């Protein structure tokens, strides 16, 4: 989560954005199309891909689009039935596995080795004539950059599969390393994660999807083209997968990303990435010194934009879990995220500062963690019974998993719990 500049919000709220209908004559929407087209060219430069669509409504939608393109590609070669497996890794985003399954793929998940990285030897064993493609995040949620990523791509290419790079979070690598140099066929960026568009409690958002020259005709329609004097929407894509979202995507998010990049420029983007990495490694250094905390894998090495830590020792020594610490952090106005399931790292917690927080804010956050750890060793009940200062007290989760008791709307609540 990074700073969403207020000026970008002012621009996105302009009637020139808000009051424009997507089916207007393209001559009356040249401003919107120009922004979309130019952001496409920026993202091409940032990734090395050859064409982007802004249509997917989020990262998962972009992953679904990647899986769909992989399917359509093999279908056009008469191999769709045969190639029915997608390979991913356990520290890739859950949607890399889940969206592939929506397209009917059998999902093969590679696990980490002792360094926390997916094993290239395991990949070699996993590929076959059934391999449709690879969907992989890098750096993974551990914040460790997979140095063998190009070899992964080669192995899958040799087996006849396509490779999709989940770059939803490219916070640490802008201007440093690109999908193209690693050999990928597809990649996507979350404009709401890497390029500052606000998350809005979970959308609206954009998963900007880019492809190599060879795959442009598979993109969802329409794409924005420039004819020398005017921008237009092209539906003329021979192998198109069709659509993954209405119209052309979330234009306000596209506009905010465009503005963010224009404010920073090439040098600023790289600076944002390197300070995100600086902030992350500063936190890593501090957390390693906190009693009960550890940073599994890649001992003695630095990380990119985030780290998945562990409270395993804290739990062993005090009984305090990640969940307990999370609830206590709320008392100080801090959010601590555990991780996606399954919890491969025991008692996981994941911190990503991005470039946005100042050193003072980071230090304050760390002080919060230190205080709670102190409490855990001296007065564990203090942590166990948190939160105290949050707007709400400890929630009873038992009703949320019980069909007889759950209430997803007020009227359902009245029916189930306030019987008249």
């Amino acid at each position, binding site marked *: 989560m990074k700073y969403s*500049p207020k000026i970008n*919000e002012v621009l996105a709220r302009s009637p020139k*954005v808000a009051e*424009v*209908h*997507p089916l*207007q*004559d393209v001559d009356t929407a040249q*401003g*919107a199309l120009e922004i979309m087209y130019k952001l496409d060219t920026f993202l091409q430069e940032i990734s090395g891909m050859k064409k982007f669509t802004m249509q997917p409504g989020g990262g*998962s939608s972009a992953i679904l689009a990647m899986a*769909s393109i992989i399917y359509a590609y093999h279908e056009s070669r008469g191999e769709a039935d045969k190639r029915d497996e997608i390979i991913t890794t356990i520290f890739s985003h*859950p949607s890399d596995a889940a969206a592939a399954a*929506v397209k009917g793929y059998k*999902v093969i998940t590679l696990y980490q080795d002792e360094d926390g990285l997916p094993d290239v030897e395991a990949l070699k064993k996993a590929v076959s004539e059934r391999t449709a493609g690879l969907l992989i995040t890098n750096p993974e949620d551990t914040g460790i950059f997979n140095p063998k990523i190009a070899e992964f791509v080669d192995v899958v290419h040799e087996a006849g599969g396509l490779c999709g790079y989940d770059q939803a979070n490219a916070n640490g690598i802008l201007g*440093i390393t690109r999908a193209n*140099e690693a050999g990928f066929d597809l990649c996507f960026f979350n404009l709401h994660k890497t390029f500052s568009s*606000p*998350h*809005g*409690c*979970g*959308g*609206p958002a954009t998963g900007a999807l880019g492809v190599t020259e060879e795959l442009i005709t598979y993109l969802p329609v329409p794409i924005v083209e420039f004819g020398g004097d005017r921008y237009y929407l092209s539906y003329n894509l021979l192998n198109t997968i*069709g*659509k993954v979202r*209405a119209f052309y995507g979330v234009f*306000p998010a596209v506009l905010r990303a465009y503005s963010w*990049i224009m*404010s920073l*420029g090439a*040098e600023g983007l*790289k*600076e*944002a990435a390197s*300070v995100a*990495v*600086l902030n992350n*490694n500063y936190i890593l*250094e501090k957390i390693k010194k906190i009693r009960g905390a550890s940073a599994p894998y890649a001992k003695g090495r*630095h990380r990119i934009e985030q780290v998945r830590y562990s409270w395993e020792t804290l739990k062993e020594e005090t009984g305090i879990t990640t969940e307990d610490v999370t*609830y206590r952090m709320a008392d100080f106005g801090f*959010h601590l995220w555990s991780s*996606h399931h399954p919890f491969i790292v025991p008692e996981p917690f994941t911190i990503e500062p991005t470039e946005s927080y*100042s*050193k003072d804010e980071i230090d304050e956050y760390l002080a919060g963690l230190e205080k709670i750890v102190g409490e855990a060793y001296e007065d564990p009940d203090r942590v166990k019974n948190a939160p105290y200062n*949050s707007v*709400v*007290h400890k*929630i*009873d*989760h038992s*009703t949320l*998993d019980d069909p007889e008791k*759950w209430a*997803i*709307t007020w*009227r*359902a609540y009245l*029916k189930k719990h306030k019987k008249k």
Partner: protein
Amino acid sequence: MKKSEKMVHPYIPNSAPKVKAKMLEEIGVKDVDELYEDIPQNLRLKREMDLPQALPSEYALKRHVEKILSKNQTCQDNISFLGGGCWQHYVPAICDEINQRSEFLTAYAGEPYEDHGRFQALFEYESLMAELLDMDVVNVPTYDWCQASSTALRMAARITGRSEVLISDTISRERLLTIRNYCVPVLAVQMVKHCPDTGLVDLDDLRAKMTPDIAGIYFENPSYLGFIEHQGKSISDIVHKNGALSVVGVDPVSLGVIIPPSNYGADIVCGDIQGLGVHMNYGGGQGGFIATRDEERFVMEYPSRLFGITKTSVEGEYGFGDVAYERTSFAVREEGKEFVGTHAALWGITAAVYLSLMGPKGMQELGKTIMQRSQYAMKKLSEIKGVKAPLFDSPHFKEFVVSFKDTRKRVEDINKSLLEQGIFGGKSLSTEFPELGNCALYCVTEVHTKDDIDRLVQALEDCLK
């Protein structure tokens, strides 16, 4: 990196050299570049990216972006009769006020404890939509109607254990393309014909296609082409008799005057919330809803977050949290139901603000106003020589097909003439529904005054003379 270290940008506080030096010292490295040790040299970009000159001055950035945006014309400066999946409704000022609040706008993936408001506001959204739809379960919004209908059909297939779905062929092309891509290759998609005169689902064709493999039918009411599908009960009865589900797409704006699909047998209801207080945003205002009855076999098939209400450790206090989280891809990856991620939550909160402002009476008044104005528009348009509105012999809500078949001009040319008069004419249907002939889909809402409609009629008369 030397050059980069000089860069101090307000978005990057720790780019200040002194702070940076202190942090590097604490980490124990001399240069930020050392932190990238794991990225092999052959994968490094060895040059600066080729991007336009940066505009770090906020004023310069504003001038630059506004200059580009000034090339857009808006539905505020013109009169627009465009609909077709994105609609111009009035957006009460409070909707923008609430959705600009940073507590909602910039909130990310918080927990109920430090993001209580997000959970409660979306629960309120679910609850308000549930009243409107007369159903007990509504999801946290998905991307849009395209996704909501796609997921509703995948849910129907999982619930029934069947592998084929039927779709009324008056559906929007966009939704059809999305559904097809989302279903292929897992489900087969087959179209059901409509009656050429009324646009209604051809019940004979539906019966003929009702094989034991059919998981459900998807139809829309009001339809994409604007007419009201009054056979909802008969359609639902036919599919239910075959053990399949009735899946209905609905414009929630219509529900103040038209009974909700649940009242004529719908099992899964879906649609778009953009009309409920969200600006058009060049197509960026879409948000999809899915609603069902409160039965475990339905609830467990949602891929979306479902925020529920519960108790806390304090007597009498309400708390909120995820219902049946274990069904989601966040919990069990590819074993979960489809996938969940960042979708359109902020528009859900906005729709909640809108619905709570309008109330049942407001929604009824809105629906009536739209009906009256669209009726007036159809009547006046039909008085123009060679123009027929609506094309289908059925009642309509806010959208309707206007046929220019008996004029000498193509819709595309008519729209060019209208544009010169500051009017955005209806969407040409020539690509989507070529069989309808020279037709356009017009949309009239509460924002259109009698004067606006009269201006359209006058402009058309002039153009078709």
